[in-house]
């Protein structure tokens, strides 16, 4: 059994050796290529990947931040818009209320002024009536006096006598009564 394994191992070793010989593989060249590749990989890792990945990460972070900020700004804008609409609606309501109050106030004022004007007008009319009545009374008195005097004068001229003060008084009173009647 051991002989078979040894033979197999020997055969395997020979095959490996032949294969390496055919393809020009040897430890020296192999290790040289290992070192070359390791150097390239480490240099690229240090000088080529790290800075670029850092930049990409930074950019990704900035974009993420930007998106978050944009989202935040959008939300704030929506809130501001909502607040603006609320303020506008409140201002509209306040303005409407003020207009209504002003209208009401104006109506009241107008009513009061109208009443005052009516009252003033009535007062003027009353005064005018009173003045007219006084004037009328005065005119009537004057007219009575004048008429009494005319009646007395006419009677004296018609009768051809001088009328006594009593006659004059009586005639004037008679004329005034007739005029009043």
């Amino acid at each position, binding site marked *: 059994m051991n002989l078979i394994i040894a033979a197999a191992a020997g055969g395997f070793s020979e095959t490996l050796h032949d294969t390496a010989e055919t393809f020009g593989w040897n430890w020296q*060249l*192999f290790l040289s*290529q290992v070192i*070359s590749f390791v*150097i390239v*990989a480490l240099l690229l*890792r240090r000088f080529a*990947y790290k800075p670029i*990945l850092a*930049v990409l990460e930074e950019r990704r972070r900035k974009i993420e931040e930007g998106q978050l900020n944009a989202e935040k700004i959008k939300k704030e804008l929506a809130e501001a818009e909502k607040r603006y609409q609320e303020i506008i609606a409140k201002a509209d309501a306040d303005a409407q209320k003020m207009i209504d109050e002003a209208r009401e106030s104006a109506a009241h004022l107008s009513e009061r002024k109208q009443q005052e004007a009516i009252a003033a007008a009535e007062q003027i009319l009353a005064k005018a009536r009173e003045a007219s009545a006084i004037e009328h009374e005065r005119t009537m008195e004057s007219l009575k006096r004048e008429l009494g005097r005319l009646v007395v004068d006419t009677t004296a001229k018609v009768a051809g006598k001088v009328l006594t003060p009593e006659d004059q008084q009586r005639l004037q009173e008679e004329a005034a009564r007739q005029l009043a009647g």
Partner: protein
Amino acid sequence: MLVYGIALATPAVAAETEPAVSLKPIPIFEIGKFAITNSMLVTWIVAAGIIVFAQIATQNIKPIPSGIQNFWEWLVGGLYNFLEGIIGRELVRKTFWFFATIFIFILFVNWFGLIPGVGTIGWGHHDPNTGLFHVDQPLLRGGNADLNMTTAMAAIFFVLWLVWALQAQGVGGFLKHLFAPKGETTGVLKVLMAVIFFMVGWLEVISILFRPISLSFRLYGNIYAGESILEAMATMVPLWLAWLPPIPFYFMEILVGVVQALVFMLLTAVFTMLIAQHDHGPEHAPV
């Protein structure tokens, strides 16, 4: 005899028993006892190019990217998001540097191998039978058409995979993940399931041990095959028309370059995800 020159492919004519494109990298010079191969040179050129490019791209980083920074951000950011979608946020944070390097490095090494001159400029000899110059030692060779390179990447992944697995699961969790029975069973069935899962665990261990081999040979095979196809296409027509047949295959190889880089990265990422994820219950347990 070392002759420097430019040759349109002729190896198939020159050597019928040898493959048109050599299976192995060729040493072009030595530093002491250390041989520098043509594929190693390509690997270094591409590595230096990527590092310089990345350095320029990240030298003066601006908040609003433009030019090279924009391209590098697109590449790194795209890979990061792509991997994050597959292996998850936590794991990608820890492992991204490796998977990104795997993809970028393999991709540009593959594409570099398609530049005209790679594999056709070098040292060679004049073939008196054909009257053409034959390149024996190309100055440059596709980096991933060298098994040393692909096994190096696969081996690094294997070590990192083990480290990440132990970090995620602990030694006990790691062994449990491999050998412990999954699901809710009782009595005799539980014992039976324990035996079965223990045996399946060994199959899993073998499968894990073979991953570096399959990863490295898949990439090597595809890239080597691509180079061979381009070589074959150029030699199947008269010399004056040799530029035409490879053209569609160049486009295919550009695609193969991307696909192979993606396959290597995805497989390594998925292997890592499978071992690093925690079992939440029978429905999530790997079969």
